[in-house]
């Protein structure tokens, strides 16, 4: 892979997919980011890939919590009362 990198200045798709996270995290050095973006402009597949990664991340962010069972709600209500009754100040 490094051989490919040095032989030509252009990134190939297989390299681009490894840089996607650093790109999204804003962690690519400027020159690398430019090469990345230049590749994207010419490559609909990698553009689609980047979009798929964005969608994956957004979908993870939309996961909703599992509902607590009524038993668990009751258990935590009881625990809460007993913890409050013991008073604060227990060390971490």
């Amino acid at each position, binding site marked *: 892979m490094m051989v490919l990198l040095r032989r030509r200045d252009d990134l190939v*798709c297989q390299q681009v997919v490894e840089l996607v996270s650093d790109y999204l995290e804003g962690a690519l050095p400027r020159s690398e980011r430019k090469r990345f973006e230049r590749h994207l402009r010419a490559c609909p597949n990698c553009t*689609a890939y980047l979009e798929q990664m964005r969608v994956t991340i957004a979908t993870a962010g939309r996961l909703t919590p599992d509902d607590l069972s009524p038993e668990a709600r009751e258990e935590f209500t009881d625990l809460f*009362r007993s913890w409050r009754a013991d008073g604060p100040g227990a060390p971490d």
Partner: protein
Amino acid sequence: MESDVELLARLRDGDEQAFVTLVGRYQGSLLRVARTFVPSDAVAEEVVQDTWMGVVRGVDRFEGRSSFKTWLFRILVNRARTSGVREHRHVSIDSTEPAVGPDRFDGNGAWAEPLSPWESDVDDRLVAASWGPALRAAIDGLPGRQREVVLLRDVEGLPSDDVCEVLGITEGNQRVLLHRGRSRLRTVLESELQTRGR
């Protein structure tokens, strides 16, 4: 939906409904993160229960310098560590695992088959919702360290700095873990779409 801060204020006043609402909001993620540190579901449940006790008893000391979420997960990770499990500091990372299988590329490293965008589907809430279970399962199947980072960053939305601090890892490590994790999740969603034959 009530914000964490509002619930916390009510919790300070001893409102048990507010407490149970917070538990409902975070219990699943806490258990999932705890499980990456400890050897069994049972121990994870103990650690999480301990964490909630820490919240109830420590709520007056929470100063809001970090978000409630970051505070909560920091308590969790501290408890998980003291319940004696794995040394977490040195993250070894398999950097050879590719984001996309090599068979998907031709001899020049270009995509062998065209990729189609998903964007129009996902803005559709119904489709997103139907992906939920598959994505959940995929996250549960990630290696522990990738799972922690994905849960905290992408599911819970903690900022990068907070995730590094809570887990005690460097930013570079976090990025590699996140990259591996997200790449795997994308692959799962992709095959899910193909299976459903759209």
